[in-house]
């Protein structure tokens, strides 16, 4: 029984070791996952810029519709 348990533990540690060595696309998990934070802030910035550009175009359209851009 003890031998079996030891074998199981051994296998377990082997698979764990194997898991940590597997190469995956881990860029987003490197450096304390800082790239995730960069991504989150960029999403917010892109959303903000998208909104501002839309608002800008909307105001430009209103200006030409009301003719207030000539005054």
């Amino acid at each position, binding site marked *: 029984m003890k031998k079996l348990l030891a074998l199981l533990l051994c296998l377990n540690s082997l698979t764990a070791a194997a898991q940590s060595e597997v190469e995956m696309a881990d860029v987003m998990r490197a450096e304390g996952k800082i790239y995730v934070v*960069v991504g989150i802030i*960029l999403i917010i910035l892109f959303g903000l810029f998208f909104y501002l550009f839309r608002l800008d175009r909307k*105001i430009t359209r*209103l200006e030409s519709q009301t003719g207030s851009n000539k005054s």
Partner: protein
Amino acid sequence: MSSFFKKFWWKYLCVALLIYTTVAGLLVSVPRLAIVNETIRALYFHVPMWFGMVAMFGFSIYYSIEYLRKQNSLSDFMAVEFANTGLLLGILGILTGMLWANYTWGSPWHGDPKQNGAAIALLVYLAYFVLRGSLDNIEQRARLSAVYNIFAFAAMIPLIFIIPRLQDSMHPGSGGNPGFNVYDLDSRMRLVFYPAVIGWILLGVWVASLQVRTRQIKQHLEDV
């Protein structure tokens, strides 16, 4: 200025600068200092709020003086919307500063002279909007608030730039806390910090410009 508002090149520049400063601000290496640790990166985001606020209030007082000289409604719109955007950036500066102070100085409100001065300056500018809101006559409102705006700017400069330097402030560039000044000399940080300042000022101008143009459309519709 109003034709500049409708151009797009500086808006794309603003987008590029802010994306650059966000990525570089979080990833480029910074000086390793005790206590501040990685929060030194907050310099790239917290300080540009204040630079932006001072720039917005600067534009605001310029257009207030323009209003007093020419009495045109566009100058009044410019003055009020730049003051509005400056106030927004100032509030963001206070909030980011409180979060930063909590983890580096030990408490969100430290009674630091610069912190107190900035809070008083914001209150002075809030009174500008109280004054505007309390007057019904459009010309009276524009003229009185333009005069008050000159006072508000004259009060903000010593509150933020002079009084904190006369006392022991924990902000860099003042008395005390000399170890913090290391980053003032770091050229790598300047490469991110100055673009950030320009980017946030451009964003402030952009937001203010949209508000001014909306006010112009509204005024045009009322006149027709």
